[in-house]
């Protein structure tokens, strides 16, 4: 099966003065070679330390940033090679939802105006139908009856309601893929649960594929089918969510899982924690070999000299660690720790 969206060797740089990668210039290679595949109807979680390049990947996927190397294929076709019409179809098929619902809506536009714009640009419905379609979209995201909300401005909605409008705008053009960048981080537990339920329904009912960026591993566990873990511009581990949580095969994934708080005071006090030391290295000056080696408790000499190549793993995932095969010894998977103590 051809994946719906496929990324190969994606690189994206930012200029920081001297121009991207120009000799003597101070370019930052924020994304340094990422491979990803997303199938129809699948939820892929993208996690990783702050500054590792998640948002940059997302913006490249929806065409807001131009890659400096690599290929993005949509339904098997290289998006760089698309003609004008096909390009428009791709931009329509892949939609983004941003982290902050306060910044991403125009304060002077009503919900109707916000939704009507993409409907018109992509000629989704005839003009006479705009109002009814916008109301239907609001109903779909749980603002019902939608017609009652059409004439409200952003400041008349709560944070959770605004995020629903952003999602309504994204699904207005009937996309096949949603790229959501921390869509629930700014929301409270209860409202967060409502939005997560909405994402779940959209993938189940409309067959939408989703790339979901988050810091919250409990959300990853319950929402996603697959998870990709990024570190300093590269994917270091990828695989089926349940398999990765049961036995992470990259020490950075293991560190992330070990650092996630457990909402159970009895268990939490019986776990021995060793927080990961050090800070994220700068993408402007990445360490040689494996980028994680300066912080890795299991690093050996080879880790400082040779960059590990991603290798397929038992369980259907892949890991870019020289010692992935030893994972059962060092990974301390949560499930197992919890079994031991309970």
């Amino acid at each position: 099966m051809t994946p719906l969206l496929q990324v190969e060797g994606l690189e994206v740089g930012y200029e920081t003065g001297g121009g991207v990668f120009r000799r003597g210039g101070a370019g930052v290679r924020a994304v340094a070679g990422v491979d990803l595949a997303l199938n129809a109807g699948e939820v892929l979680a993208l996690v990783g330390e702050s500054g590792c390049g998640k948002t940059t990947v997302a913006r490249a996927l929806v065409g807001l940033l131009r890659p400096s190397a690599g290929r993005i294929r949509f339904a098997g076709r290289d998006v760089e090679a698309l003609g004008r019409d096909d390009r428009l179809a791709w931009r329509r098929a892949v939609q983004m939802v941003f982290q902050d619902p306060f910044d991403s809506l125009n304060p002077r536009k009503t919900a109707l105006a916000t939704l009507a714009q993409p409907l018109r640009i992509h000629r989704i419905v005839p003009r006479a139908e705009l109002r009814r379609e916008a109301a239907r979209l609001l109903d779909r995201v749980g603002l019902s009856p939608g017609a009652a909300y059409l004439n409200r401005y952003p400041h008349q909605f709560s944070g959770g309601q605004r995020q629903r409008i952003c999602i309504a705008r994204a699904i207005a053009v009937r996309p096949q893929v949603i790229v959501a960048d921390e869509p629930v981080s700014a929301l409270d537990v209860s409202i967060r649960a409502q939005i997560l339920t909405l994402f779940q329904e959209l993938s189940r009912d409309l067959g939408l594929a989703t790339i979901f960026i988050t810091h919250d591993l409990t959300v990853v566990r319950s929402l996603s089918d697959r998870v990709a873990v990024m570190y300093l511009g590269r994917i270091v581990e990828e695989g089926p969510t349940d398999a990765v949580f049961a036995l992470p095969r990259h020490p950075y994934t293991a560190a992330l899982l070990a650092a996630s708080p457990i909402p159970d005071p009895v268990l939490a006090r019986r776990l021995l924690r060793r927080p990961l030391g050090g800070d994220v290295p700068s993408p402007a000056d990445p360490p040689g070999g494996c980028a994680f080696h300066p912080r890795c408790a299991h690093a050996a000499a080879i880790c400082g000299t040779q960059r590990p190549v991603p290798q397929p793993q038992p369980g259907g995932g892949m890991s870019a660690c020289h010692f992935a095969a030893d994972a059962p010894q060092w990974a301390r998977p949560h499930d197992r720790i919890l079994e031991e103590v309970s």
Partner: protein
Amino acid sequence: MTALLSVEGLTTHLHTDVGVVRAVDDVSLAVAPGEAVALVGESGCGKSMTALSMMRLAPPAARIEAGRVMFKGRDLLGLSARQMRRVRGGEMGMVFQDPMTFLNPLIRIGDQVEEAISLHMPERGRAAALLTLEALRRVRIADPEQVMGYYPHQLSGGMRQRVLIAIAIACRPSLLICDEPTTALDVTIQAQIMDLLRGLRAELGSAILLITHDLGLVAEYCDRVYVMYAGRVVEEASVFDVFARPRHPYTRALLRSTLRLDRRADGFRTIAGQPPNLVHPPPGCRFHPRCPEAFARCRTDEPDLYGSVGARARCLLHAPEAA
């Protein structure tokens, strides 16, 4: 228990163009020396306003209508602005969610930390610079000599937050108030910072009041919990009790909506209904419109905190006559 901090009947109203927001309504809480106490509750329930009122940092629209904030035997609400400045950042440290609101983008890190310290310590010149270095070292900033010369934008979010903590703990406070100190950070940096706070308690015997949404953090790092709803404390309990035997239906709902790492949830649980309006709060129990266990009297009678100090809930199910 001799409390280090004891807040009694604190009431803060915000005067806005939509009316008077009852952000903090008769809140009482206590923190013993060396204790870690959590203040939890949904967005907008008044957690930050409680902390800001205690420190006399509430916004201009806020008016403290009633209450006492006893800290080391003095009522902070009765101190002069000058005396209060000496308490803040000295015996009482603070760390807030967004470090950039407290760091000046145009001043080097070393100078900012040094200035904050010199407000409370007699050291000047080289001695003050050494204290600054020690403070940055204590929060495990690698290469502190170099970092002292940096401007805030040259630090990652986690490093900025550690700089703020360095300032807060430099004067060895007996109480540290942390309002969502790690919400914007990823879990590995969060773990580093929480570990640092734990070390501070062990090393200096400081107490911590932690404001957070994250019940995982509460479970791991706190001894006792206050749960707020719509401007009021609705439950106080030990951390073990609150997770094992939550007394208030709101606390139960909050715990049910918490996701776990060790298993996939079969659905995302929400708390039914809308968060309350703090201008016109519901009569009776403020949670009754959303409470699955509400009965007729909940709509009319305002519940008291029932139980004993440290183990009580503001819910008629726990009223003595109901038992």
